[in-house]
């Protein structure tokens, strides 16, 4: 520990200092990005306790793999990918994604295909906080696999092939899950608007 004040240093400078073994520099990185990493874990796991544990584990892995960080993306994006992979591993362990049988997936797809198209934008003129709250409620009602694809695509801005790699499935599966997730979200948000 050097006791140096790192609060005004850039992320890149902190990463370089942390690579030299300066824990204080890494602590500053954790303080800056911990909420974002935690938020990603929450959106994927839907469980605060798991999210805290996994984000903590992600930071430990981040420290151990600092030398692999190539400065090709921002440090927070790199860290987010680490926590995403940990969440996916955890979801696989819990057999949530894989326990959904093919038949179940097909049935779900059939249901979403038959939903009427939502013509009126269900989120129009909503305050940002209200919109966020409704999205949170709707996300909670999606299946694990549909929510995961939606989070990775819409929040993390990952491309189809990146999601397919992370989730260990085909691009076709990603497209299909994303489509049904969006249709379900449209329907859920329209319902929430009607219930208001």
């Amino acid at each position, binding site marked *: 520990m050097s006791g140096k004040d790192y609060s005004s240093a850039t992320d890149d400078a902190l990463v370089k200092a942390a690579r030299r073994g300066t*824990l204080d520099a890494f*602590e500053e990185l*954790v*303080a800056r990005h*911990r*909420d974002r990493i*935690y*938020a990603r874990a*929450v*959106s994927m796991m839907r469980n*605060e306790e798991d999210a*805290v544990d996994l*984000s*903590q*584990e992600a*930071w*430990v892995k981040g*420290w*151990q793999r600092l030398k692999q960080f190539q400065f090709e993306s921002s440090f927070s994006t790199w860290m987010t990918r680490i926590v995403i992979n940990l969440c996916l591993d955890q979801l696989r362990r819990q057999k949530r994604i894989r326990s959904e049988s093919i038949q179940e997936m097909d049935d779900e*797809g059939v249901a979403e*295909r038959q939903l009427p*198209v*939502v*013509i009126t*934008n*269900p*989120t129009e003129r909503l305050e*940002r906080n209200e*919109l*966020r*709250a409704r*999205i*949170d409620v709707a*996300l909670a009602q999606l299946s694990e696999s549909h929510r995961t694809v*939606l989070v990775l*695509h*819409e*929040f993390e801005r990952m*491309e*189809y092939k990146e999601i397919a790699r992370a989730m260990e499935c085909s691009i*076709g599966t990603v*497209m*299909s899950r*994303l*489509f049904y997730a*969006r*249709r379900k*979200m*449209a329907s859920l*948000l329209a319902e929430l608007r009607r219930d208001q």
Partner: protein
Amino acid sequence: MNEEQQLRLQAFLDGELPEREARAVAAWVESDPAAADLLVELKAIRQALAGSEPAVSLPESREFFWSRIARDIEAGERRETAAGPAGFRWQHLLWPIGATALCVAVVLLQNPFATTERPVASIAPDADTPIVEAMQPGSDATTYRNESDGTTLVWFSMTDNSRTKPATATF
């Protein structure tokens, strides 16, 4: 509209189609109201989600959260130090040790010095197994001793008449 068309429409929205295919989908949307409606819905959801991730904050103080991370980092480094130089693992020795053991076993099985003669003495692994021993190398007396019931049996070979007579002795 079939599923393939729906997914192509979505890929068009997400900018995942090659330029030529994207132009074809744009033309299709222009001429098909159902496709145009579905595209509007998908676009509205995409826009609603963009930047609308539910805001959450870690429910732990900076100091407490960091203390847990620092503890795990230090524990990991202690484990690495205890494991020896980077990359060294005891498992790496399994192959050489296994190969050496195999060689030794082969040599023992094919030992040119191995003799077919009776062993001078052998030791039983447990009390239930009788101990068999020759009284002296080259002698014709053999002792069988069973520790579990305290019995000792001594065999004397009488070579002059090619018969073996048992005799017992108690110790």
